[in-house]
């Protein structure tokens, strides 16, 4: 059923427009004379809080090991299907051979990503983080599909609490040396 709204006639003060003009001026002067809130971007950059969800990036641990093992859980969970991983194995004789698996390629289509942070939340290896990168420009679609190399460059190094694979390797070496557990 149609709803009829009653339109009230303007009062005299409203008809002069003066109270509105004064109200506007008041706001203008308050901001003109008060503390500055804008900054000279891009020369000046804002401080990004720790829990900011910027561009998803891949990270190394403090020993320089690439943390992603290409388990593809983030690829599975990503709502807009922005992630595409080509799994691969770590070759025999490599320093990190015991980790067995690492991505051959890792693509994130930044045109698809919605910065939801699900990938970071699901990652069992703490390898993918949405960090402080917020400015994203490109001149083609291809340029905005970030590959493994770029993702690691953006990600840098993050502290690690567990060193899960180093502990594992140490235990293996201990066992080989005949100490500790079989």
């Amino acid at each position, binding site marked *: 059923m149609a709803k009829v709204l009653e339109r009230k006639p303007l009062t005299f003060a409203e008809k002069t427009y003066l109270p509105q003009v004064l109200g506007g001026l008041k706001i203008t002067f308050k901001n003109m004379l008060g503390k500055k809130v804008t900054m000279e971007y891009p020369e000046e950059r804002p401080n990004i809080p720790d829990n900011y969800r910027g561009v998803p990036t891949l990270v190394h641990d403090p020993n320089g090991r690439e943390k992603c*093992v*290409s*388990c*593809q*859980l983030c*690829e*599975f969970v990503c709502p807009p299907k922005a992630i595409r991983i080509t*799994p*691969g*194995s770590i070759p025999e004789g490599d320093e990190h051979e*015991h*980790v*067995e*698996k690492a991505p051959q390629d890792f693509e994130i289509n930044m045109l698809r990503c919605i910065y939801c942070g699900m990938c970071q939340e699901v990652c*069992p*290896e703490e390898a993918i983080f949405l960090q402080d990168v917020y400015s994203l420009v490109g001149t083609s679609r291809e340029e905005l599909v970030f590959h493994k190399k770029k993702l690691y460059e953006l990600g840098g190094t993050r502290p690690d609490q567990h060193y*899960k694979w180093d502990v*594992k390797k140490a*235990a*293996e070496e*201990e*066992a080989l040396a005949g100490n*500790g*557990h*079989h």
Partner: protein
Amino acid sequence: MPEDASKLVNINIDGQDYKVPAGMNMVDAASYCGVEIPHYCYHPKLTVAGNCRMCLVEMGTPMRDRSTGEPVLDENGVQKIGWMPKPAIACASNATPGLHIRTNSDLTKACRTGVMEFLLVNHPLDCPICDQAGECRLQEFATDYGRGYSRFVEEKNVKPKRTVLGPRVILDDERCILCSRCVRFTEEIDENPVLGFTQRGSHSTLTCYPGQELDSNYSLNTVDICPVGALTSTDFRFKMRVWFLKPVNSICTESSAGVNTEVWSREGKIYRITPRRNDAVNDTWMADSGRALYKQVEAESRMKLPRISGNQVSLAEAIERAAELIKSGPTAYVASGKLSVEEQFLLGKLAKVKPGSVYFVDHSREGDSRLISEDATPNLRGGLVTGLISELPGERLDALADALKAGEVKTVVSFGENLINAGIGPELLKKTDLVYLGTHRNDTTDLARVLIPTLTVFEKAGSFINRQFRLQRFLQAVPGLAGLLPDVVVLTRILGDISGDKTPDPSMTELWAEIAQAIPALKDLSFAKIGDSGVELDGSAYDNLPFHEKPGWHYEPKLEPATTSGSSF
């Protein structure tokens, strides 16, 4: 007590009465009633080992007085159930009249939680790099019955990882839960007992006998039955997560055994083939060699473009030219058991519209008395049932060669047959109007006037009749190569061009409606009716043919098999 499917007995699961075949293993009986009993070591096709203890349930039987043997009744006159004081393993019990089990009691759940905790004590945190993740029983039951955190503060055992057991299997001992399924498989089914445990207790380690390898052609079955990620396939290792893969029911084309399979693909790319259970054909097993057949889809020699005299043309042009050549004739057709029943049926129609002899080529070789039969084609019997042939084919096409030499035949249509191998020399072929429909390049394809690339078994649907005269269907797992059409469509269009009566491309349902009418042996059947486990046809009309197949799993020849010539394949 052996299983007797003809006799049903009453059992009671969680207070509900069910009827199950007498003697059925209780793990199977429960699943037959829709109740899951978690288990690791039990496998329906292997002997019972009873070592994992995951299937513990409370169990009771109707009470009888020990001295008189009279049933003990309660106050309502119903026979009392004597519950055993301790839980028992379901996998070591069979369905007997009145057997009661409890699968959801507190005690049962406590057992499962306890067993899970022990299994996980030394289990590595490998799920992110473990190929089994997503189809791992340990993961599944850990979610259901796991504690969620570890109370184990000691160091975990270290065991060998990345051990190469054989050319196709890699072992990670830390993930092994010592269920012994693989050991029993190699001993009981493969009869090549190379696997066993060394050490004791939690240090037990699965090992290959020194100096031996797990290299049998059935080794990948151990990977299938391993409930965890201890045994993994070298070919599939780290290729793709299983949760991205879509399984489609198919039939293995390696031989006339007609092994039931599942083809796993993601976005049109096949990653692996695994066996599908069919108790009448292959149980739960499959040969390793059949699993590699998916590689033919992306093989280098795959033909992608239709050609006329070597020049690239569109498929429509190639079909038109093929129809012209067939029509101008005189024509002969060369096919084999590689074609599906539907394709053979349409070939039969073609050979009626444009009469010409139909030759089949024999592809026999050495079998393994198991699931690789002596006949390397999946559907020779389809040729018999569809009436294309009435005798078993030979390996050579000498009669056709003679007819070509004498000029009695001008056009030859080859359905994926390498005519040069079958004894028709290149000189003779060059003078022939050869129409070739097939998937991969060979000596003959280069000489074809008209070359129509077709689709592999993974890219189309159809059915085969295996050595037991069992009609089984395969479904399309991945899309066909761009620009190509299924053989049945190509054949229908050629038929339309020749007869001038163009019909729309048939669906499987329509095609089968026609087949059921035309072929008495297949009447009352439809593509849907073949179902997932196939339909056994009456093959008695062909009992007197000396098929090449020797006895194999689930197969006994009716006659003494003819000797195979082996190497010609």
